[in-house]
């Protein structure tokens, strides 16, 4: 297959856009298009009301709340160990990662530190939920532009990771495995070897996806130069994760502000892309999955021995105080601002979820794009509805 150079690609897109603009000049009546609530491109029940002028979007207004479950209110009547059951369901395809920042915030307030082995296993499962989450994106991104095969590949190979998560935690989607002071259990026998085999399979899955999509004429035409987010706009909207790294911002909480997790003891790289378009977001995520598999391999090799739980009281009361902890979750930065009054339950939990900020840029980003591009842009921003609505 001949690779298309960036220059050729951009000139092609510019020509297409110019053609379309000519068509727009033929006066068309404004039209309001309702996308969703149930639409394959919305990953759940997000609704987008788009005002169109011909094929071009002149205003887009996302409407959500169809899945608002009020976790911030519910967390106020749950004890600290009970809260993890709730927050598991925020980002349901990478659910273990949701628990980690909350547990870390509670540990920070309690001045408890998990033993090294627990911190390493936490990091392993954290990275595995990233793989489970983002491999679904890699398949889905193909699906958004009409390629069905990557989606099947994603579901096939994601299974290996889910099996390992299930083997260690007992839950495929909602592990509820993280505890204040450590993790619930040690790893089962033979888990390490099997996990390494799964990582190998994920790496070959990444190669397959790369071969299928990257350089594919349709995929490139639909993604290159579409939905460009400049770095400063992305920052002021609070974009995080691969979305901001694809705009050339070299910022990863795992490297820059590691609290409680052991990423800094590993050899890995933060990937960025200068373009800021849909393709860049896809590409950065693809590299991140590869990087995660390498991290899991290293973590499995260097896993220290010892206990997996620190000494914590049976009834957990968290001392009064406020703490904010954020980690680099699969969808972006996820943080919990926990206010405690020394009680069994948190006084206030502010959940800063990645997708809420990531998707808040859509009114700005969708302005001026063409209708088919809405789908690829939403797909490449990659959000999970539970993570927006909470």
């Amino acid at each position, binding site marked *: 297959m001949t690779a298309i150079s960036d220059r050729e690609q951009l000139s092609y897109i510019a020509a297409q856009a110019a053609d379309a603009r000519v068509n727009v000049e033929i006066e068309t009546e404004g039209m309001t298009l309702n996308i969703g609530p149930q639409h394959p491109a919305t990953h759940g029940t997000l609704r987008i009301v788009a005002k169109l002028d011909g094929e071009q979007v002149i205003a887009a207004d996302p409407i959500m709340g169809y899945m608002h479950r009020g976790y911030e209110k519910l967390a106020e009547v749950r004890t600290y160990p009970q809260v993890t059951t709730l927050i598991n369901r925020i980002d349901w395809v990478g659910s273990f990662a949701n628990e980690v920042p909350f547990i870390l915030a509670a540990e920070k*307030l309690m001045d408890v530190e998990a033993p090294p082995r627990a911190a390493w296993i936490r990091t392993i499962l954290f990275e595995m939920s990233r793989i489970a989450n983002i491999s679904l994106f890699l398949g889905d991104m193909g699906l958004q532009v009409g390629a069905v095969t990557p989606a099947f590949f994603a579901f096939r190979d994601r299974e290996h990771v889910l099996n390992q998560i299930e083997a260690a935690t007992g839950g495929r989607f909602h592990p509820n495995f993280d505890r204040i002071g450590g993790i619930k259990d040690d790893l089962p026998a033979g888990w390490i070897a099997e996990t390494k085999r799964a990582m190998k399979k994920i790496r070959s899955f990444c190669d397959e996806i790369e071969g299928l999509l990257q350089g594919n004429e349709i995929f490139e035409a639909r993604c290159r130069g579409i939905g460009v987010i400049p770095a400063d706009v992305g920052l002021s909207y609070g974009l995080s994760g691969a979305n901001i790294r694809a705009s050339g911002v070299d910022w990863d909480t795992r490297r820059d502000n590691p609290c409680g997790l052991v990423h800094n003891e590993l050899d890995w790289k933060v990937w960025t892309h200068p373009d800021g378009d849909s393709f860049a977001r896809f590409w950065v995520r693809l590299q991140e999955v590869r990087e995660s598999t390498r991290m899991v391999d290293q973590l499995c090799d260097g896993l220290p021995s010892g206990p997996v739980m620190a000494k914590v009281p049976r009834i957990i009361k968290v001392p009064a105080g406020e703490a904010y902890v954020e980690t680099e979750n699969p969808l972006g930065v996820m943080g919990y601002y926990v206010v405690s009054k020394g009680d069994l339950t948190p006084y206030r939990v502010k959940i800063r979820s990645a997708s809420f900020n990531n998707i808040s840029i859509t009114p700005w980003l969708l302005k001026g794009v063409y209708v088919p591009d809405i789908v690829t842009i939403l797909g490449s921003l990659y959000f999970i509805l539970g993570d927006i609505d909470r």
Partner: protein
Amino acid sequence: MSRLSSTDTPVEEEAEVVESDEAREALLAKIQTELGDAVVGSHLSPGDDLWVRVDRSAWAAAGAYLKTGLGFEYFNFLSAIDWKPSPFGRDMDAQVDLSLGHDEASEIDMAIEQGVAGGDTRFQVFARVNDIVNGLGVTLKADVPDDDLSIDSWVTVYAGANWHERECFEMYGISFEGHPGLRHIYLPAGFEGNPLRKDYPLLARRLKPWPGIVDVEQMPGDDDPADAAETTEAAE
């Protein structure tokens, strides 16, 4: 990991502080110089975090200075806290949960007690911004008086504040002056009440009481006789 204290003790008075935090101290000094008397409270947890409480009138100025003057370009989140404890207390808790250490007889303490960086009012708006180049984050707080629940909007400074302010508006009833479209974000347009206020009852619990911990299966090897007896009783 450094310890967080709920009181506003200055850094020097904390006994076990080993590291001083020059970067955050310098940052706090800069904010105090720029905003002057508008900085009404602060709390610094060395090597960890910084809280600055500003006067309501300086809320927009503080955001603008942090963004343009100090390079805090990253908008993280914005929300509010209701410091007045719930009048319902824990009355809907299951008996088993109350036995976990909650004194059933104790009456509800309605005293308002603010968290770090202090406060004077029931409602506080707080927001967090980051300087991703130097890896610093700062949490700003501002008091919002009960008789005038409004504060300046940050939308012109941080575009991302738009949705956060809408959420804060519907959940707490705080209005943001200068917001381009302050309307409900999650709840239906006709929804009455502000759900995250502490005096808004959690209706789910009233409709279906919380079962408590009895429905939790006992873990193997966890043979607390009291628990075991309880589980057997429940099974019968």
